[in-house]
């Protein structure tokens, strides 16, 4: 059971994120939702890499102990970098939207003309 907790956390994070993306009208909250989904997926990747009693895959000073799998770590790093780029882009778009409409409510923005 104790080993399943990370997976439960992953599913919870993704579901909360999806809820925010679908149900929330505030653009910032939508962005937070996407970030939550992303953290969930990243946590999933990291959890996959972990083996019981393993250490980080760095040779220096690790002795002969079991190491966790390095590939998912590389994937996670890449995914984090991409996530930061997407986040920055989304927030900069929100700044522009706020300048134009003076609101962050998705419904109100949809109702306004140009």
């Amino acid at each position: 059971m104790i080993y399943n907790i990370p997976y439960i956390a992953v599913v919870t994070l993704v579901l909360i994120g999806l809820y925010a993306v679908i149900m929330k009208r505030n653009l910032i909250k939508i962005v937070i939702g996407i970030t939550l989904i992303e953290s969930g997926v990243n946590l999933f990747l990291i959890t996959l890499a972990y083996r019981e009693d393993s250490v980080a895959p760095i040779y220096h000073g690790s002795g002969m102990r079991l190491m966790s799998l390095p590939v998912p770590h590389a994937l996670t790093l890449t995914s984090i970098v991409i996530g930061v780029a997407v986040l920055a882009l989304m927030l900069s778009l929100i700044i522009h939207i706020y300048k134009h409409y003076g609101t962050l409510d998705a419904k109100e923005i949809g109702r306004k003309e140009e």
Partner: protein
Amino acid sequence: MNGFENILSDLLVHSPALIVAIPLLGAFLTPFFGKVHNTARNTFVLIIVLLTSFFSFLLVHDILVNGNIHTYVFGGGSALTSGGFAVRILFQVDGLNAFMAIIATLFAIVGVIYSWSFMKEHTGLSKYYTLYLLMIAGIFGMVLTGDMFNFFVFLEITSIASCALIAFYTNKGKAVDAGFKYIVVSATGALFVLFAIAILYGQYNALNIAVLASNIQFSFLDRIALVLLISGLAMKAGIVPMHMWLPDAYGRAPSSVTLLLIVATQASLYGALRMIFTLFGGQLSRSVNEVGGIEINVNLLIGAVLVGLAILTIFVGVLMALKESDFKRMIGFAAVAEIGYMILAIGAALTIMFSVNDLETSRLALNGGIFHIFNDALDVGLLFLVAGAVYYATKETSLNRLGGLARNMKYTTVFFLIGLLAVAGMPPMNGFSSKLIIYQSTFLVNPILSIIAILCSILLLAVFVKVFYSAFLGPKQAKYEKVKEAPKSMLVAMAIVAGIILFIGLFPDIFISNVVEPATRALVNSGEYIQYIMGVI
């Protein structure tokens, strides 16, 4: 002479990597040329795109003529690392990838030529071209890669670049809004894809599509992964419940960007095809589920769901196009409907292939679907180019205010007429040949499907005849007295697309047997794709 051939074969070996590397490097060199001179920068971008096209042509030619599959392992050596992990990044190119590469190459060239005059009045062009080349690199990466995670990375590169380009007119709130919608949908979709990749990696310790496909068990987790992959990619392809972003993004982006967006959408569709037919293909054909004593054929279910979604997509697209009064958004809805036709053909192929085991008909349906990917890109692309030319000349996209443009914009009118007939599937154009195949094959699944498909095509014709009448015909309008024909580079771009539409429309056989057939063969015989990489290992 011998030396020259050696160089050529060397270039061929490295071409999969170069096709992505050249636009990627070119993208970041573009601002330097932008500092020198505008024309120098435009020429540089054109040269980069032509160079990419040369390598793409080399690769595609070799694959289509000799029937080879190319792989390119980054870092060299074998595809497996010493521990037996299939985690090396590699590009694997077969008939289907080559087919997609042709579309991407063609639209990259046309898009850059079109941008030359279309964008010249704007500032920030160095950034525009940088993003444009990045998007081209991303699309090429998506359609050439043979690695799941690499596919995700290129998916994200494409969506980040295209989102920034959709919001290029930052002085217009609606354009920024469209860009935001697009990035929300594509970021969520891409994260679904990443989740699925993680599930698959967790079970099989591999990221390579071919290695995964040879190991896949179709367990419960795999099914979740399949659902996540299809729904994630369908979001990016704009299939109906997730189509909301598409007309906005297509309509608000500059026309030259829309052209590439169409290709990016098709590339996501290609991803879905690759996942269904190659990754899960071997298992789908055998998998039967027992639910409470009733046997349910999984592939039949997927096929039926796809057909249902397709009909919905076609309907929604056409009906929304009927009531839309904005020129570009209307074409955007028509593009949604056109995507429905491809999904319809693919769904029909799945239903037939795995349920009745009638390979001949399912091949026909797949041929139609894949052929339509190309035709749709051309037809909708041409319409968007025309809409862009109209916007360039009049600064107006509302159909209620446009009128009588045929007097001043002769060539543009002719191109619009060609695009109109093609998108509605009228005989001398390319849309007819692929839609006929789709009608023919869906008729075998259920005649009602093909009736709906034909009906919606007719409605599409009605939509565009209305546009043709209200924008190009009608009385002379005083405010459009001084409107000039679109500049030469835009006319050349439109002429290239229109010429290809006419050529394929007149000689569909040449195109189907040389380009579409290899792609279908690659899809149906997923074993070849898998065996090849296992052989290399």
